């Protein structure tokens, strides 16, 4: 879906991306991890043709991206870290504007807007100027998904939100899993662990880690805990909990104990406790 080859970007003397290559497979939720200022937003803006690359090539759905041109963007939905809207419009007006710009038929815009506003819980006629940050983020998700993009690019969608807002956004992304390929940048590892199946780690202008999340966790577990159960039945019922086997690497120790490896100890302990 997205292929990045030898991408390089400099801002004056500061080298932000140094010949990075990345392949986002179809249908994946790709976690793009890096600290603040690592170059995640720059990479995303380069994919959208909003910034000019110094070297390298980006292909979206097989088509090369050109700076200043928006042709490849018809396959992309973009959610900025702090999305900005026109305060004098309401959510439905805004989605209608986006739909008409994407050349969608009026009936489809109306039906799709209703569905998406229900999905993100924004059935209000209030103008966007009175929206909270979380509401704007949810409107951003709705606008990004409006034209059923093949690739959804989310730039730190949860970083500026409180725990409830974060959960809402992650739940929405989880719901559309399978419908569209998602490139999701963040510096919050527990969010990556929760929804991503592939990851790449950007550090000092290079991709230092790249691959399937489960494989990487097996190779590089940061934490592991051995859990002892009172009976084999308890162990079986723990392993049947949703998402446990999907998100954590589990090694059988005995009939009543297992070892779980994770990058985020805190979220593991929460799940175990629950």
């Amino acid at each position, binding site marked *: 879906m997205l292929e990045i080859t030898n991408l390089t970007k400099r801002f004056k003397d500061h080298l932000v991306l140094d010949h990075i290559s990345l392949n986002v497979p179809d249908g994946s939720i790709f976690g793009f991890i890096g600290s603040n200022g690592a170059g995640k937003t720059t990479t995303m*803006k380069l994919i*959208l043709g*909003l*910034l*000019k690359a110094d070297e390298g090539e980006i292909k979206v759905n097989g088509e090369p991206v050109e700076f*200043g041109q*928006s*042709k490849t*963007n*018809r396959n*992309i*939905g*973009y959610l*900025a870290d702090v*999305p*900005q*809207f*026109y305060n*004098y*419009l309401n959510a439905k007006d805004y989605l209608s*504007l*986006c739909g*008409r*710009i*994407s*050349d969608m038929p009026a009936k489809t815009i109306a039906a799709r807007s209703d569905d998406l506003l229900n999905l993100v819980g924004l059935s209000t006629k209030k103008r966007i100027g009175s929206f909270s940050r979380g509401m704007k983020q949810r409107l*951003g998700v709705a*606008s990004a998904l409006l*034209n059923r993009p093949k690739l959804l690019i989310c730039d730190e969608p949860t970083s500026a939100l409180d725990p409830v807002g974060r959960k809402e956004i992650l739940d929405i992304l989880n719901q559309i899993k399978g419908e569209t390929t998602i490139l999701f940048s963040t510096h919050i590892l527990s969010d990556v662990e929760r929804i991503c199946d592939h990851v790449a780690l950007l550090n000092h202008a290079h991709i230092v880690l790249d691959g399937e999340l489960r494989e990487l966790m097996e190779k590089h577990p940061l934490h592991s805990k051995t859990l002892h159960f009172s009976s084999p039945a308890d162990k079986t019922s723990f392993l049947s909990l949703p998402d446990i086997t999907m998100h954590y690497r589990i090694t059988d120790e005995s009939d009543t104990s297992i070892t779980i490896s994770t990058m985020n100890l805190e979220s593991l302990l929460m799940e175990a406790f629950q």
Partner: protein
Amino acid sequence: MKQFNVFLHKEITENLRTYKSQILIAVFLLLGIISPLLAKLLPEIIGSIGLDGLAIALPEPTALDAWTQFFHNVSQMGLLCMVILFSGLMANELAHGTLINLLAKGLSRTTVILAKFASASLQWTLAYLLCLGTCALYTAFYWSASLHHGWLVFGGLWLFGELLIALMIFGGTLSSSFYGSLSLCAGAIILFTLLSLFPDAVSLNPLSLTSSTQALLTNSQSITYYLPAYGITAVLIASFLLGSIWLFKKKPL
């Protein structure tokens, strides 16, 4: 073309919902009403001041005085009001990042510039015609007189307004700031004013479109003398628009 219509509609909605269009129309309507009224009442106002028996002989006001007031008011207060209202045309969108989502939806950058120019032009033209119509009605009511070179004189001020709009879009695209856009307009007017100090350059100076009205109305200067200034202004408008498109396409967002 479809994207152009959609974005133009968005621009018009924006100007209506933020009351910019209404303010512009109200100011120009007021200027249209007060210009002939001021011309009519000025001798009476001055006469009523009473300067200790000093007699001031003022000629009877004519339709020409009303139009002189019109051009004086519109070219100063009117254009200033328009520049303040429209200086944020490109600058605000670039400074707030509101265009990013629409560009990510496939909106063409050329369309943004052209639709913004069309929307501001439409409002300026409408406000100007309303002001002109009101002034003409009142002037016809108070006096009856025909004008020399009417279309060219009125067209000149309108074209100068279009030049300011193109300048504001260029300034906003270049600087991404309201003050950058305003400064470029102010800088251009200062430059044109300095140029008008050279008598040889008067016929080429875009500022002549607003300052030559008296000479044309009184038929004291021929039309052909000022035609190069009209041509140069039209070329400048096209150049600033093309420059804005070129600049915007090269601009990292």
